[in-house]
């Protein structure tokens, strides 16, 4: 029973992280029709920056300093995104989508090594944050309190993002641009600026995912490539460009993965890819996507 | 004998009745013009008959066979070809290759990966003949994207023609072409089509052209056939004249049910 609770909590925790990454990926696709292969690396960058910031500035400082530094990864990644869009992506909007895919692949290669260069080859951790929050008992077992915080952040992010997209001026602009870019510009929206903002927001989400996950795990090279492929599975299952889809997909992937490790470890990953392939075949727009 | 027959054909787009209960027959070797104001449903009718769209209801008979539910390829094989209002070519291929492709397809050779296309002299000769018929010989080696608009229009028709169809739909073959080139293009097309005895249905708005080349004119409005007849009969039909000229004041917007 206690195990079941922990496994459910863990699945939700993992779903939150996946949602943060996938929502950004989906948002960028929704607005700009670009599949960002570097998205996982941006997630990793968020993790590295937060771990580095906490390791550098919060050593020996009170706990609140660490919490203050937690979003550093998300902010930096958003800034990186805001720099990437106008320089690398903008020249390619009129070109076939192959080139957009390729440039993000190049970006992936560059980011992976840039992190290697900046943060070194050894994993960075921010375990002090999670350890300082301690654990709570769940019947016979213990569970890190920090994980609950991440779940809360994940839910808050989902609600916030939803509200942001469906309830604010910027959200209306974003949706309008994604539905009809030309008309949006004819109504006075600076589409270039909206694209930068959307891309930066998508990157922010990925960076946030990395930032909140790093105290619980660690920032290591290659974490982005693994995350990307799972985020891909998430958005394919949920539906490219759909926020609800990212949520549904993240939950499915996360629970299937937990069950997979418990019951069918040999084919856990294969099952996820197969689900994605079947969804693509039967409903290419995903479970909650529109035709 | 009727080559094509549509029976109560319908195609709606939401509230728009693009093709509304159209029953039309086309006889063999006829040159029919399809005219009518914007949005009358001419192009939609051609799209449905050429299987680009599925009809909502009704039947299409070709040479007496029911082809309502056949695919584009099957209709092409049966002998229905068409050109497009907005030029629809293989832009990265040469004019010559555009035409050879149609010939290869007609001869069922496109499935063959083991012979060199340019060594098929029979096809090359035919392609050159087709290009010559359409006055495109000098553009043989140009990529389709580099041709002038008028030449592109001609090539579009040439592609359809190279399929040696029984029935050829030509959707505004002179639209987007400067006035200068229009007459020449129509002359070329008409001479080829007449010369080969192909049944042709042309959507055209230049009434000079229509009156000059057609055996029969079909006038459409609001998705339905308003009138049809010989050029002379249509010329003298006041209702048609008013609609086509758009001079009928508010009546122009009256739906004919």
């Amino acid at each position, binding site marked *: 029973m206690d195990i079941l609770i922990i496994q459910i909590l863990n699945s939700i925790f993992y779903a939150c992280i996946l949602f943060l990454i996938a929502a950004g990926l989906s948002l960028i696709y929704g607005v700009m029709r670009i*599949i960002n*292969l570097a998205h996982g690396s941006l997630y990793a960058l968020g993790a590295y920056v937060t771990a580095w910031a906490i390791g550098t500035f919060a050593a020996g400082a009170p706990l609140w300093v660490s919490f203050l530094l937690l979003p550093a990864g998300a902010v930096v990644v958003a800034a990186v995104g805001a720099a990437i869009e106008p320089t*690398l992506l903008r*020249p*390619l909007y009129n070109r076939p*989508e192959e*080139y957009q*895919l390729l*440039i993000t*692949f*190049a*970006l*992936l*290669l*560059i*980011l992976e*090594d840039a992190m*290697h260069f900046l943060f070194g080859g050894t994993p960075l951790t921010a375990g002090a944050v999670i350890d300082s929050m301690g654990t709570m008992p769940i019947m016979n077992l213990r569970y890190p309190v920090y994980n609950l915080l991440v779940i809360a952040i994940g839910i808050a992010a989902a609600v916030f993002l939803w509200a942001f997209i469906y309830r604010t001026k910027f959200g209306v602009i974003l949706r309008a641009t994604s539905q009809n870019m030309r008309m949006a510009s004819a109504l006075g929206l600076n589409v270039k600026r909206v694209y930068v903002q959307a891309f930066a927001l998508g990157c922010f989400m990925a960076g946030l995912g990395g930032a909140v996950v790093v105290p619980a795990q660690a920032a290591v090279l290659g974490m982005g490539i693994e995350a990307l492929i799972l985020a*891909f599975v998430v958005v*394919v299952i949920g539906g*490219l460009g759909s926020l609800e889809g990212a949520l549904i997909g993240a939950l499915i992937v996360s629970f299937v993965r937990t069950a997979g490790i418990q019951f069918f470890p*040999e*084919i856990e*990953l*294969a099952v996820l*890819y*197969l689900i*994605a*392939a079947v969804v*693509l*075949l039967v409903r*290419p727009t995903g479970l909650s996507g529109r035709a | 004998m009727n080559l094509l027959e549509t029976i109560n054909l319908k195609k709606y787009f939401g509230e728009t009745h693009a093709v509304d209960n159209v029953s039309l027959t086309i006889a063999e070797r006829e040159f029919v013009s399809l005219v009518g104001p914007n949005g009358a449903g001419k192009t939609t009718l051609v799209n449905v008959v050429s299987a*680009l769209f599925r009809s909502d209801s009704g039947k299409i008979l070709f040479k007496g066979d029911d082809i309502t539910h056949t695919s*584009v*390829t099957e209709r*092409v094989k049966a002998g229905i*070809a068409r050109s*497009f209002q907005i030029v629809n*070519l*293989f*832009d*990265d*291929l040469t004019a010559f*290759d555009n035409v050879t*492709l*149609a010939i*290869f*397809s007609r001869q069922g*050779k*496109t*499935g*063959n990966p*083991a*012979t060199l*296309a*340019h060594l098929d002299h029979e096809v*090359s000769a035919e392609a050159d003949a087709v290009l010559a018929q359409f006055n495109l010989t000098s553009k043989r*080696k140009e990529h389709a994207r580099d041709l002038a608009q008028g030449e592109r229009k001609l090539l579009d028709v040439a*592609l*359809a023609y190279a399929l040696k169809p029984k029935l050829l739909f030509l959707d505004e073959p002179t639209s987007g072409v400067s006035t200068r080139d229009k007459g020449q293009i129509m002359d070329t097309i008409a001479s080829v089509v007449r010369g080969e005895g192909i049944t042709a249905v042309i959507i055209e708005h230049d009434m000079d052209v229509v009156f000059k080349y057609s055996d029969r004119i079909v006038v459409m409005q609001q998705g339905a056939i308003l009138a049809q007849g010989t050029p002379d009969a249509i010329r003298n039909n006041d209702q048609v004249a008013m609609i086509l000229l758009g001079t009928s004041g508010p009546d122009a917007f009256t739906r004919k049910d």
Partner: protein
Amino acid sequence: MQNDASRTGPSMLLILACVIPILVVLVALPKFVDTYQIQLLTYGLIYAIAGLGFNLLLGYTGLLSFGHSAYFGLGAYSAAFMAKYFGVGSMEIYILGGLLITGLVSAAFGYICVRHTRIFFGILTLALSQVLWTLAYKFFWVTGGTDGLRVPFANLTLLGGLIDFKGRDTYQAFTQSYYYYVLFLFCICTVFMWVIVHSPFGKALQAIRDNETRAQFLGVRIRHYRWFAFLLSGSFTGLAGILWVPLNGLVTPDILYWPFSGEIVFMTVLGGFRTFTGPIVGAVVFNYLKVYAVASTAYWQLLLGVVLVVLVLALPTGIVGTLSRLFGKFRKR
């Protein structure tokens, strides 16, 4: 964008005039350069075969597969299985058996994938290749897991047993013989692919790429043709995988993982995917580029990434495309 492949009636004389000197150089090369360079070039030629196959889909059919690692890996693993479980050492049997397996799988995968185009096609190919990757990774009792399977050249025979490499210190002999073996197959593949893209079928593929609707209205059965192109493409890439195994000595799941698919795309774009020779040049250059990048800096990915950025932004037609444009300008002057 220029398209060499679709020029009407390629001039045989001109082609032979270009090809024969290159061929002579390639044949004579082992006399002049050391084993290591020959070995690198062999890798390059093998990737070139993969690139040729891949480009039939990307360049000629207009479908971007992000899962071609699957067919390369399948070819490689088929050969490795034959070596490990059936004690087969004959390269010819590897090729026949491997082609059969990659052919069957690419036929099956292709049947599924060509239902979609554009980005969905890309994602579907990616997902399917990842399925194979996890299988190779997880079913270690068959595949050796991350350790992979060894295919030592010591047990290998070429030309139905005429050439073998028993005994010690035969690496040099192997490298030379195998280079010629691969070179020969590379020539066959190139000619074969050249015929395919210049055949009526190849023209039909280009037609589908340029204008799907119109191709349909010429009576071309689009999905059918795409499927067949997929099958051919997968088989070429599979052949490359088969040839790669003895040279590499072992096969690991890395070549099934999606970044390797990315590399196949990379080399094709590097050379220029709108030209016939682009993928060949791209594959050979990419191989050198990567080897020397890895050898000279720990940040080789960064180097490759920057090259790719420059390529996409400044030279979208790739090496061959850019050269032929420059050559064209030069000639016009």
